[in-house]
């Protein structure tokens, strides 16, 4: 390969140049973290860090980093640093750099210099084309460092000179007055540039060539994964922080502190009083709570699962084990996939128009359970079918050769082997239906802020009688509340201000947090079940 030196099988001790490159990668990672932190306003860009305003620090670091990688690339080209570059940086990298510089050139020409359409198009083409050429034509060490480093230096200079300073605002000029402000733009640009420079520095650290590309890709993927996890974490942390004050308001411990409960005929007082999860909403409550909605949500999910899981697994057993694979199973498969992607409001409408009139002609818990059950059904069918298909045919053959009937084989061999997969499907499905608002709104919504006395008592509601239908449960036939629905009405409809809830914002966030906890609780149960079934299938 032209220009390639032989790669040693065992690399020698870390050289100084490698250490510099590694330092650049680390600095880029720090810069990336800093910019993420300021996107989420953990630090403001005007905050002084070590006596320098944040924006100056970001800009300065970008300039330093940019120069570092460019120096490394040029040094490698001139032969001062021993590397192993390919003849070109490759089409993907060149195309990306070309596109980035095309945008940069256009923005500078139109926004900063104020040129017209013809002007910015020409400027864009010039910068984009130049970047493409610089990246595609020279050897890889120049091609992958120069455009990235130059971009970082450029962005850094723009921040340092205050062209984009803390008070900068880019009005897009649309009617809605959409605009980008500096608090958002500066960190995002910095994050982007630091990713690019980090990638270039990582390539330099690997000495370019195959190893350099490997390390470059590794750094990109790693930073990306970390930022996604950070994002998730932030989302949850945000809800938790906002929700905690409302959630624990009025929490008290001590003998007899809590409300009275009756269990198996014995009445006693709970040793905890946790108003938010033990109360409803009432005029005389010190602290209002969401007990009816919590219980409603839990029963909804339990009902939907009890309804959908046996039906879904049964259907999957039929189409996987009994029906001949052909047109029919294909149609069923397409239909179930389609049903799973059907918007929930459509299911809700079906429940309202079909189930509600047939189940006592009023919105009821039962109607909600069945509607959510219908939503869950396709996913249970799909995942059960997938995991049964994944059970090796050898098991079925072995069982058949022992003179065991098909049904016994399915029950004793296929289903146990498929259960972990089936449970995974149920977990995913429950996660979706537990937070579903639209179907509940249409099929079972009761009062928005129900008092504690309206908590459904499904188990206690069963009544025996001597005439058909023998068992009735008025609790199932009543409307009740559920967390997502309550949250929805508290936020959009503004209900609640009029009722007795005082700190309405706190109340909303605490409701959201409780919903999160309930859903995660179902997840935990599901994962524990799956773990149990899986451990029975595996050795150790």
């Amino acid at each position, binding site marked *: 390969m032209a220009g390639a030196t032989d790669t040693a099988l065992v690399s020698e001790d870390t050289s100084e140049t490698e250490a510099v490159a590694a330092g650049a990668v680390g600095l880029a990672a720090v810069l990336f973290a800093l910019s993420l932190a300021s996107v989420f306003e953990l630090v403001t860009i005007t905050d002084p860090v070590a006596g320098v305003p944040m924006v100056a620090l970001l800009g300065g670091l970008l300039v330093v980093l940019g120069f570092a990688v460019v120096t490394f690339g040029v040094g490698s080209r001139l032969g001062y640093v021993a590397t192993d570059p390919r003849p070109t940086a490759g089409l993907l990298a060149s195309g990306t750099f070309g596109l980035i510089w095309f945008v940069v050139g256009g923005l500078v020409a139109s926004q900063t210099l104020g040129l017209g359409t013809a002007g910015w198009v020409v400027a864009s083409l010039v910068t984009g084309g130049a970047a493409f050429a610089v990246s595609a034509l020279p050897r890889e060490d120049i091609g992958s460092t120069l455009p990235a480093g130059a971009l970082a230096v450029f962005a850094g200079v723009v921040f340092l000179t205050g062209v984009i300073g803390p008070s900068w605002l880019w009005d897009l000029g649309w009617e809605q007055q959409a605009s980008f402000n500096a608090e958002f733009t500066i960190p995002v640009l910095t994050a982007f540039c630091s990713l690019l420079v980090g990638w270039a520095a990582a390539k330099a650290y690997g000495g370019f060539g195959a190893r350099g590309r490997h390390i470059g890709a590794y750094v990109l993927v790693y930073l990306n994964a970390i930022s996604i996890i950070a994002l998730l974490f932030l989302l949850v942390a945000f809800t938790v922080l906002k929700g905690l004050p409302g959630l624990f308001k009025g929490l008290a411990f001590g003998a007899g502190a809590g409300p009275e409960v009756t269990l198996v005929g014995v009445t006693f007082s709970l040793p905890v009083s946790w108003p938010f999860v033990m109360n409803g909403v009432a005029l005389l409550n010190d602290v209002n709570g969401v007990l009816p909605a919590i219980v409603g949500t839990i029963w909804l999910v339990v009902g939907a699962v009890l309804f959908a899981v046996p039906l879904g697994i049964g259907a999957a057993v039929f189409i996987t084990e009994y029906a001949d694979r052909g047109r029919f199973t294909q149609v069923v498969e397409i239909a179930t996939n389609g049903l799973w992607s059907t918007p929930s409001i459509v299911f809700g409408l079906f429940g309202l128009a079909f189930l509600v009139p047939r189940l006592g002609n009023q919105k009821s818990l039962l109607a909600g359970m069945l509607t959510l059950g219908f939503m869950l059904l396709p996913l249970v069918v799909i995942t059960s079918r997938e995991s049964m298909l994944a059970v090796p045919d050898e098991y079925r*053959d072995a069982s*058949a050769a022992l*003179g*065991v009937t098909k049904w016994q084989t399915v029950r*004793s061999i296929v289903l146990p082997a498929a259960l972990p997969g089936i449970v995974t499907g149920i977990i995913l499905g429950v996660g979706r239906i537990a937070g579903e608002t639209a179907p509940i709104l249409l099929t079972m919504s009761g009062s928005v802020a129900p008092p504690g006395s309206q908590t459904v008592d499904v188990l206690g509601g069963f009544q025996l009688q001597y005439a058909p239908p023998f068992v009735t449960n008025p609790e199932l036939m009543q409307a009740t509340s559920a967390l997502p629905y309550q949250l929805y009405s508290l936020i959009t409809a503004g209900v609640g201000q009029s009722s007795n809830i005082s700190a309405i914002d706190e109340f909303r966030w605490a409701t959201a947090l409780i919903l999160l906890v309930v859903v995660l609780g179902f997840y935990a149960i599901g994962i524990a079940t799956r773990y149990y079934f899986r451990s029975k299938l595996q050795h150790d």
Partner: protein
Amino acid sequence: MSETRQTTDDAQATADSELAGGASPGTDQPLEVTSGETRERTREEWVEHEFEGEAKLSVSDLDVYYGDDHALKSVSMEIPENSVTALIGPSGCGKSTFLRCLNRMNDRIKAASIDGSVRLEGEELYQDGVNLVELRKRVGMVFQSPNPFPKSIADNISYGPRKHGDLDTGLLANLLGRSDDDAVDELVERSLQQAALWDEVNDRLDDNALGLSGGQQQRLCIARALATDPEVLLMDEPASALDPIATSKIEDLVHDLAEEYTVVIVTHNMQQAARISDQTAVFLTGGELVEYGDTDQVFEDPQSQRVEDYISGKFG
């Protein structure tokens, strides 16, 4: 496919027949040679095997196709009761296919179509109304590749009898005090002893069977098949992954089984076939049964030149 082991004599013979393109000296059959394998016409009398007593299984004119692939060509064979029958032949000649026809496991392969007749104690297996579950209880099978269930070792063994309803260890039986737990333990121990596995696993009967080594899994599958107490046992290379000690235990087992059971065993090991079987069937490439008869006769004085070549290691 076929390979010539070059002893001087063989090489000479091969060269001769290639040159001659037809008759080879020393035999009275018309011979043709293609790449080391003698071509000859199979004769009906080569597959006739005289024995005393009833035939347990009798196969006649059995043809098997996988799609357009003609895997077994008009095979006829009578298998005597309480004996060991070895099936040998080069890879891909249809031994497993033949074995699967004897308990209709080929029905489970979509592409397979079967034509001909197999009778178990005079009863036709390939007719409407045959109860496959009952058939497979009577004709058990050990597969070529070990396939234990992802269950504990003990559960693997007791699976068949429990599902047949011979043993009941369910919750209800436990509550009613009718549980056959002791019988299950006994069955597990006896079957594992027979398959020469007991000593290795008796302290971990509740461990998952997938944690066993390949050879242990193979013996577990033998034990599992024995536990259902079939009349006929079909074994497809049951010792392919075993060391000499375990192999000889399995051979002893097969020998013992022949007193009460009818065993049909596929093997690639000629010495093994010669040691343990009463009669031997040789299948050759193309799915033909070329020679079938008393094991001593087949190994010492084969009637077919191709079988002689195969047994002496000239090809296959």
